[in-house]
């Protein structure tokens, strides 16, 4: 339940950015060779909102996130961040946009030659050069404490479990106080208890930071827990978009099949 403070904060940010979506994707198309992964999809996410993108494996869910962060270039269509078109931006101009985004990769993608603390400090070392070493260390501890990893600062990524790697990846994604959070299969490969813990963590962070979040997942339970809206992709198209009740009441055969088997 949103408190009066939450509502006031949201109103202040709405006045700053307007009611325009933070992330808006329009008629986005991407092919790899002869395989069309995204066939002109349109989605948007507002501040403080979490959109879960669901679908079968290989339907382009992860490609959507990679297009938004600029790791891939779309064949056609538009991607706007706070109203700024980024689809054709060169690598060196994407820098300022990317600093507003945090990305959690499916397998966390931690730098395996750095410790847990060094991984989280990495973006701060490069982009917060005005921070002293002690300030940076303090900030790293805060971030790791938020994700429950404050006791594992000096461990290497290979010394911690998959779930713990995701937590560290999440802390690293939050290092630059992003306005947009992109999560690629955050609970993939985790046991139900660890998945629940990651879901709770995402919910807590979302409540506190009011980011615009896009979560790609095939885990319907996780999507129901953390997302305000769900979008179901099939063969490169958005089949349905809405809250869980909208999906549950849908008469579309694919949606019924997806919900039945999830």
């Amino acid at each position, binding site marked *: 339940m949103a408190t009066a403070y939450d509502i006031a904060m949201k109103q202040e940010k709405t006045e700053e950015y307007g009611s325009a979506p933070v992330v808006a994707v329009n008629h986005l198309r991407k092919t790899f060779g002869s395989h069309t992964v995204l066939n002109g999809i349109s989605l948007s996410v507002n501040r403080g909102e979490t959109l879960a993108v669901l679908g079968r494996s290989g339907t382009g869910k992860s490609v959507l996130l*990679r297009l938004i*962060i*600029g*790791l891939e270039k779309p064949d056609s269509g538009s991607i706007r961040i706070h109203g700024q078109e980024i689809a054709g931006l060169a*690598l*060196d101009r*994407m*820098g*300022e946009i*990317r*600093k507003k*985004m945090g*990305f959690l*990769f*499916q*397998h966390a*993608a*931690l*730098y*395996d030659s750095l410790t847990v603390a060094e991984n989280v400090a*990495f*973006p701060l070392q*490069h*982009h917060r*050069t005005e921070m002293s070493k002690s300030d940076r260390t303090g900030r790293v501890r805060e971030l790791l404490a938020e994700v429950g990893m404050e006791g594992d600062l000096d461990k290497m990524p290979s010394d911690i479990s998959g779930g713990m790697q995701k937590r560290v990846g999440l802390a*690293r994604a939050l290092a630059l106080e992003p306005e947009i959070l992109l999560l690629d299969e955050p609970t993939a490969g985790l046991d139900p208890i660890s998945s629940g813990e990651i879901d709770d963590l995402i919910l807590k962070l979302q409540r506190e930071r009011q980011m615009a979040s896009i979560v790609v997942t095939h885990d319907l339970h996780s999507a129901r827990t953390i997302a305000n809206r769900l979008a179901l992709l099939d063969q490169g198209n958005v089949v349905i978009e809405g809250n869980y009740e909208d999906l549950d009441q849908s008469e579309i055969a694919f949606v019924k099949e997806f919900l039945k088997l999830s």
Partner: protein
Amino acid sequence: MSSSRVTAVAGIDPPLQGRPELFASSAVNSVTELVNGFFEWFGSLGIFLWKVLRAAVTPPYEWRELIRQLDEVGSKSLPLVALAGAAVGVIISLEARYSLSRFGAKSMFPATLVYSVIQVMGPIITGLVVSGRVGAGIGAELASMKVTEQIDAIEASAINPYRLLAATRILACILMLPLLTIAADACGLLSGWFAQAMVEPLSFHQFIESGFKGATFNAFLPPTFKTAVYGLIIGLIACFQGMRTRGGAEGVGRAATNSVVLGSLFLILADVVLVKFILVVFP
């Protein structure tokens, strides 16, 4: 029933034997693919080099990573390079003594050893040893980072991977190769003198004076500093192969192997051009 009839019924392409037109077509396709692959590789390498150059000359500069790579490429390769240089010195010493004795030119031994080590063997052996150690290491490291999305994570963190990963490693190779070559040359001369002195008394002072008699800087500096070009080749090819890897563990292995093989090959081919260039520009 003939074999061609059997394969036609079974829906299998008929064998090429006895069908020269198909064999020729297949051969032409193979050659075309090879030529296309050759130009595609060089084109991609050129684009990669351009991106690295652009990244290298625009701030913010990755000084910390560069220093780390100077240590990785330079000081950690030193023992291996020194050992290889010493071995080469002994080999040349043994061979030169035998050959020069046959022609009654034993007095030429110091100069022969000095010129052979510094102008020819020292640079090429250093290049090949570093290509094997550093080239494979960089290729495997960056390939592993590529397949585990670590390079994507660097890019997603608004950090230029060409600047952080490639430019630092290539610059480290360019700066360290001449220094490693000097080390290899020194070990080669020392070991070569020692091998000779074990058989015939020859003071080190005599050896140096005789070996460098009449020599100018032009004789020794260009062959040593041409190894900066070797460093460029080793670093560039290793970084290129690593950062374009696909295919998991197999891809990592392939990247490491290709880094060494292609790095060594282009290094030797470049040496042909560089030797001619040095002989023309520094007669």
